[in-house]
């Protein structure tokens, strides 16, 4: 190893400076050429495959090792949950009819959110405000950059890099994430931004007279066409008014539990025209 370049011929400081300059060059190159990140994701495929095997083995082992008592308790809880859901389902046909009537009144058309595919998490990167996960679906399954990702509860983020067999999703909490939103039942557009924290998002640039109050549900507005409108994003947790700041600080709790992601749903939104045809 010592025979490789940059070991001896130059003094340490000079070598460090050259490598620092190289790092700056690579960073700047990656801004201009996002394909570099795609190459990285493709190179990571064997590692991600191994990770997937280890995850499956771990899950199988932990299921096998569960005690009979735990399984019985879990079974009883699930039966109870089924009863509750059956009761809730009774009201569903009525609500569906009402919803279709209301949408017709609003000159809108009920559209299914679109086709979905289930993906498993292969790797996580949750450091330094970067909140990204890697999943086991890629361009081979039709995944594309900008595709919405969902989990039980609502939206969790969107695809930012994709390779043939894997895709990297930037979570809502990622510092570079911003999604057009609006309050449920309202039309005031806003943005939901990540803060580098899995449990809290923010709504920037809200005046002190903002209509958002704690408990307001935020959904995707559909602006930009990337996310279909009406998907749950989060619930306003608090609205703080600093006396010297021009804007209110609005904190939002994500609808989906970003800290307990297991199965991810990728959504191929159905366009309005496709829904009609």
């Amino acid at each position, binding site marked *: *190893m010592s025979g490789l370049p940059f070991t001896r011929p130059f003094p340490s400081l000079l070598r460090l400076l050259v490598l620092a300059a190289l790092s700056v060059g*690579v960073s700047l*190159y990656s801004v201009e050429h996002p394909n570099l990140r795609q190459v990285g994701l493709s190179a990571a495929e064997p590692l991600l495959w191994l*990770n997937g095997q280890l995850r499956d083995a771990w899950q199988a082992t932990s299921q096998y090792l569960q005690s009979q008592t735990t399984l019985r308790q879990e079974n009883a809880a699930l039966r109870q949950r089924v009863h509750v859901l059956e009761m809730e389902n009774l009201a569903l046909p009525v609500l569906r009819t009402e919803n279709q009537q209301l949408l017709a009144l609003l000159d809108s058309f009920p559209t299914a959110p679109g086709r979905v595919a289930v993906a498993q998490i292969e790797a996580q990167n949750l*450091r330094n405000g970067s909140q990204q996960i890697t999943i086991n679906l890629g361009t081979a399954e039709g995944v594309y950059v900008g595709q919405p990702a969902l989990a039980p509860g609502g939206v969790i983020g969107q695809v930012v890099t994709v390779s043939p067999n894997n895709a990297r999703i930037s979570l809502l909490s990622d510092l570079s994430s911003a999604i057009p939103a609006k309050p449920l039942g309202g039309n005031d557009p806003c943005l939901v931004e990540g803060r580098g924290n899995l449990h809290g998002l923010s709504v920037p640039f809200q005046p002190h007279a903002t209509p958002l109050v704690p408990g307001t549900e935020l959904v995707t507005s559909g602006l930009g066409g990337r996310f279909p409108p009406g998907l749950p994003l989060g619930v306003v947790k608090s609205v703080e008014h600093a006396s010297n700041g021009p804007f209110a600080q609005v904190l939002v709790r994500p609808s989906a539990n970003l800290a307990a992601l297991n199965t991810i749903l990728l959504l191929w939104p159905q366009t309005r025209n496709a829904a009609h045809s």
Partner: protein
Amino acid sequence: MKAGALVFGFVLVFLAESLPLGPLYAQLHPDFIALFILYWALSSSQPLSYFVIWLIGLVQDLIFGRVPGSDAISLVLMLALLYAWIARVRRLPPWEQLFFIFFLLLAQSLGSWLWQAWAGPIVWHNALLLSAALGAALWPLFTFVLDRLQHHWPRRKG
């Protein structure tokens, strides 16, 4: 360090670095790649190439979707700091080395953090400190396991 053990060790630490074991693990796990490079540098009789370490850091950046160059340069800085004290560190038993290891891991994390701060928005998280502390706490066990691995690794014939 034997070449086979080196490759096997790198595969293991890259795996450990990306295991999907939940957000707590993802935020708090020690930087296994940095730990492995420290072990490699301390157990090797010749100085490691900064350029090779820079390349390993670049691969790490690309695989884990970080700002390209951030881990590359911070690993090189960590190695340069280690070489400034390497004679002293080598004389210490593993449980005393862990103070230096903590300092070096923290320096590496800070280097990477600052690089990413230069490249875009970023937040400070105490997980950086905890991760370095955990890495240092695991150092005696880490060296013990890798010493055994090296010892039992089959020798090349001829």
